[in-house]
């Protein structure tokens, strides 16, 4: 049996979730376009993306959200789950970038459905530029 642990008792406000590093590639952007049936050229046609004013093909808003979700899921393991994730894309992330997905616990509270944690999330590129800020709400089992 893959066991769960009691994370709720172990973490305090201010706890920093282990950083997840993601390196989007042309192939990954293509695969994400394919699996989401998103045929918008800005995600896989560099010429089109540049004509549209972007530095290169753009990492999808949804893919960046999935990076945040992976970071939280890796941390929670079988001790909890994501209830809600909010994020906004402030700058374009392109293939070759190294993205650092970071989160900090900013609140713990008891709700009708159980023990809830609030996280403040930031995805930064290798230069430290903010690509996407976000907020996560997690439920501890």
């Amino acid at each position, binding site marked *: 049996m893959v066991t769960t642990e009691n994370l709720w008792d172990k973490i305090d406000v201010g706890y920093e979730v282990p950083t997840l590093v993601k390196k989007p590639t042309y192939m990954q952007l293509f*695969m994400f376009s394919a*699996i989401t049936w998103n*045929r*918008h050229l800005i995600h896989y046609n560099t010429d089109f993306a540049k004509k549209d004013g972007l530095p290169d093909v753009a990492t999808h808003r949804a893919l960046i959200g999935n990076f945040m979700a992976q970071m939280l*899921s890796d941390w929670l393991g*079988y001790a909890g789950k994501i209830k*809600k*994730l909010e994020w906004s894309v402030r700058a374009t992330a392109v293939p070759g970038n190294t993205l650092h997905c970071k989160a900090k616990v900013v609140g713990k509270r008891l709700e009708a459905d159980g023990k809830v944690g609030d996280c403040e999330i930031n995805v930064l590129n290798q230069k430290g530029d903010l690509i996407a800020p976000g907020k996560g709400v997690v439920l501890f089992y």
Partner: protein
Amino acid sequence: MEGIPSEAKARIGREVVHVYDVTDKDIRRFAQAIDDPNPLYYDEEYAKKTIYKGIIAPPLFCHAFTFADVPAGSLREDGLPKELDVPLPVNRAIGGSSSFEVGTELRPGDKLTVKSKVLDIYTKSGKTGLLYFVVVETTFTNQNGDIAAREVATYIQR
């Protein structure tokens, strides 16, 4: 609603519904596309030993079903997904944001009903002119009527 064409306003509230089967292949490929190696998404023998008692999909897996599988010929030349193809006087997509509520886990064999509609369209003045915000709500419900996810995404165009 200054500057928003009446054809665009007419799209607000019009719901489009699609139904899909969730397969282990969809889950596996989605997990590979987001580059998440968690065996919970790939390995049934492993997943059976977890609290989930079998393979489940990643938390934001519903993104695989947000955009309808309409023929390429029905899309705009730049391939913009149909759900965002609101007739506006601008056509360059920039950034955007999302609020994604995660509900019940999805598993291979589930039947997913996807309902999508434009909730709102509004404008704001930007540095380079008017920015158009298109707010799209998508709800994902399984065969038991349980909400698997609800996303409200805001797409910005200029």
